[in-house]
C-alpha cells in the first residue's frame, strides 16, 4: 500500500540516516493509525478516554474547587438531582458533579502514576531477564531465573491485604497508594516483556550486533527495548485499567487518601453515609464513571494489541 504523506512532507529525497529513520517511523505511525481506526471498539474507547482526560485537565474550568470544601457547602445533604445540583449532593451537601469532575483528576493520576512505576520496574526486569536468559552461558540463565523467581514472589502476594496493611500503617496518602499498587502489579508485565524479549533475542540482527561487539546494555537498550515497546504500550494501557480499579477498591475500604477525592473514595463515602432513600446517584455516578474509564482503557489496550500483533486482528 503506498502512502501519500500530505502534511510536513520530508525533503524530496531523504539524505541522512536520521531523515530515513524519520520517514520510516512516520510511515509506520500512519499505517498504525489507519489500522487502529478500523477497530470500532478501539475508537470508542479512545474517544471516551479523550473526553475523560479532557475533563480531568479542565477541571478548574468546569467546577469551582471551592465546591470540594465542605465548609462552603450550603445545600441540603443527601439530596437527589435538581437543576442546580444535576447529580445531587453528598452527605456534606457538596455537589456530586463537582466531586466527580475533580475526582477524575485524582483517579487518573493514581492510575497513571501507579502504572508508570509498574511498567518501569516490569519492563526493566523483563528486558534484563529476557536478554540474559537467552544467552547460552549458564550465568545468563541463572540471572534470568533469579529475576523471575523474584517476580514470581510478587505475583503471589495477595495485593489487597498487603495494600491495606501498608496504607493503614504508613499512612494513606495518594503517594503511598500509588507506590503500593505499582509494587504489586509489575510482575505480570515483567513476564510478558520477558517472553517477548526472548522472542526478539532470536532475531538475526541481534546476533549481528553481538558479533560486532555490542555490549549488553547496548543490545538491551537499542535493540530489545524498542522491539518490546509496542507490546509494552498495549500492556501499559491495560495496566492502567487495573490500577484504577485497585485504587477504587482501596478507597472504598477506607484505606485510600481521605482528603483528596477520588471516585473510589466517593463510593466509600456513599457506602458509609447511606444511600437507599438518600441520593442514589451519589452511588451510581462514580461507579459508572469507573466502568467507563476502565472499559475505555481496556478497549484501547485490546485494540492496540490487535493492531500490533497481526495474529490477533479481527477478520474483516
Amino acid at each position, binding site marked *: 500500500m503506498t502512502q501519500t504523506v500530505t502534511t510536513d512532507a520530508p525533503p524530496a529525497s531523504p539524505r541522512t540516516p536520521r531523515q530515513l529513520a524519520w520517514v520510516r517511523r512516520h510511515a509506520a505511525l500512519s499505517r498504525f493509525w489507519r489500522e487502529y481506526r478500523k477497530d470500532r471498539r478501539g475508537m470508542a474507547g479512545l474517544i471516551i478516554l479523550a473526553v475523560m482526560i479532557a475533563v480531568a485537565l479542565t477541571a478548574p474550568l468546569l467546577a469551582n474547587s471551592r465546591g470540594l470544601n465542605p465548609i462552603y457547602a450550603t445545600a441540603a445533604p443527601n439530596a437527589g438531582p435538581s437543576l442546580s445540583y444535576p447529580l445531587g449532593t453528598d452527605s456534606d451537601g457538596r455537589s456530586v458533579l463537582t466531586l466527580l469532575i475533580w475526582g477524575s483528576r485524582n483517579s487518573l493520576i493514581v492510575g497513571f502514576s501507579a502504572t508508570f512505576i509498574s511498567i518501569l520496574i516490569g519492563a526493566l526486569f523483563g528486558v534484563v531477564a529476557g536478554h540474559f536468559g537467552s544467552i547460552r552461558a549458564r550465568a545468563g540463565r541463572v540471572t534470568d531465573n533469579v529475576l523471575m*523467581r523474584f517476580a*514470581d*514472589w510478587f*505475583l*503471589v*502476594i*495477595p*495485593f*489487597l*491485604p*498487603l495494600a*491495606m*496493611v501498608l496504607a*493503614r*500503617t504508613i499512612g494513606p496518602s495518594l503517594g503511598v497508594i500509588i507506590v503500593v499498587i505499582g509494587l504489586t*502489579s509489575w*510482575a*505480570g*508485565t515483567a*513476564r*510478558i516483556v*520477558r*517472553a517477548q524479549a526472548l522472542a526478539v533475542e532470536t532475531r538475526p540482527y541481534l546476533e549481528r550486533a553481538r558479533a560486532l561487539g555490542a555490549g549488553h546494555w547496548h543490545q538491551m537498550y537499542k535493540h530489545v527495548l524498542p522491539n518490546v515497546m509496542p507490546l509494552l504500550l498495549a*500492556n501499559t494501557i*491495560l*495496566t492502567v*485499567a*487495573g490500577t484504577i*480499579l485497585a485504587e*477504587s*477498591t482501596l478507597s*472504598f*475500604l477506607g*484505606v485510600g487518601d481521605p482528603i483528596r477525592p477520588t471516585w*473510589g473514595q466517593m*463510593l466509600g463515602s*456513599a*457506602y458509609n453515609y447511606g*444511600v*437507599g432513600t438518600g441520593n*442514589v446517584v451519589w*452511588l*451510581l455516578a462514580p*461507579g459508572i464513571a*469507573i*466502568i*467507563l*474509564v*476502565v*472499559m475505555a482503557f*481496556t*478497549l484501547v*489496550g485490546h485494540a492496540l494489541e490487535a493492531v500490533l500483533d497481526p*495474529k*490477533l486482528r*479481527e*477478520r474483516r
Partner: protein
Amino acid sequence: MTALLDGARAAAEERSGPGTGSGLARMLAVKIGSAAVTLFVVLVVNFWMFRVLPADPARNLARQTALTAAQQAAINRTFGLGRPILQQFGNYLAQTLHGNLGRSFVDQLPVTEKIGQALWPTVLLVGTSTVLSTIIGVWIGIRGGWSRGSKFDRTSTAFVNVLYSMPDFWLGMVLLITLAGKVALFPDGGMHSFAGAQPGFAGLRDLLWHLTLPCLVLTLVYLAEYSLVMRSSLIDELKADYLTTARAKGLRDDMVRRKHAVPNALLPSITLIMLNLGFVISGAITTETVFSWPGLGRLSYEALNAPDYPTLEGTFLLFSAAVIFANLIGDLLLTVFDPRVRQA
C-alpha cells in the same frame, strides 16, 4: 486482573517452550521445591512487615477498650516485643510450623480457630462463584470465539467488557439496594438467618437464600475474565496450521473444534483459573464486607482496623499460601495436560 490475563498467556507460552528437565519427576520436584522457597520468603516478609510497623498494638486497643496496664503488658509479652528480633523470628517460625499462629489481640481466641471458623464461608462463597463463573465464562468465550463477529459474539463481548470494568463492591451495593432494600427479595447480609444453621432442607434453603447475592456478584465479575481469555485463546488456536490441515483432511467442523481447538485453547484458561483462585479468596474482601458475609476477607478487614496483628499475620499467610498452592496445582495440571511440556 489484566496482568493475569497476559501473564497467564505468557506463562502458558513459556511452558510450551523447550523443557528444562529430563523427566517428569525431576520437573515436579523442581516445581514443588520452588513453591516451598516462595512460601518461606512469604513467612519472612510476613514476620518483618508486622514487626517493622509501629509497635505497641496494645496501646491502641487500650484506647478503644480501656485495657489496663497489666493487660497491655500481657499483649506485648505474647507478641514477643522487647526480645531480640532474631529470637522473635525464630520463635515465630517454630510456632508457625507447629500450626500455632498465636492468639488474637482482640479476643484472645487462637488465630487458627478464628481462621478455621471463617474458612468455610469463604470457601463456599468463592468455590461456588468460581465454578459458576468458569462454566458460564468459558461457554460464552467458546461460543463467541467460534462464531466471531456474530450477533452473539458482539453482544456478549460488550456485556463482558462492562462486567470486567465494574468494581465488584459497586455491583454488590447496587444489588443490595435494589433487591434487599424496600423490595426484600434477599436478606441484607449474613450467612444464616439469626436462628442459625438449621438442620436439613430448611437450613440449606436459608443458606442458599443468603448466598445468592454475594455469589452472583463474584460470579458476574469473574466470568468476564474467563470469557475474554477463552475467546481470545480460541481465536488464536483457530488460526493454527494444524487446524487447516485437519480441515483439509476432511474433518468435520465440530470435530475440529471439540478434539483440537477447544482443548488446546483451554490451557491458558486452566492456568488463569488456578492463578485466580488464590486472588479471588483475597479479593472477596469487599464482597464479604458489603454482604456481612463472615469469611476470611471480612476477618482480615476487621483485624486491620483493630489492629489485630496475629490475625492479620495469619490471614496474610493463608492468602499467600493459597495462591502458591493454586499456582503449583495449575503448574502440575499443565504438566499433565500439555503433552508438549511432558515430552521435554
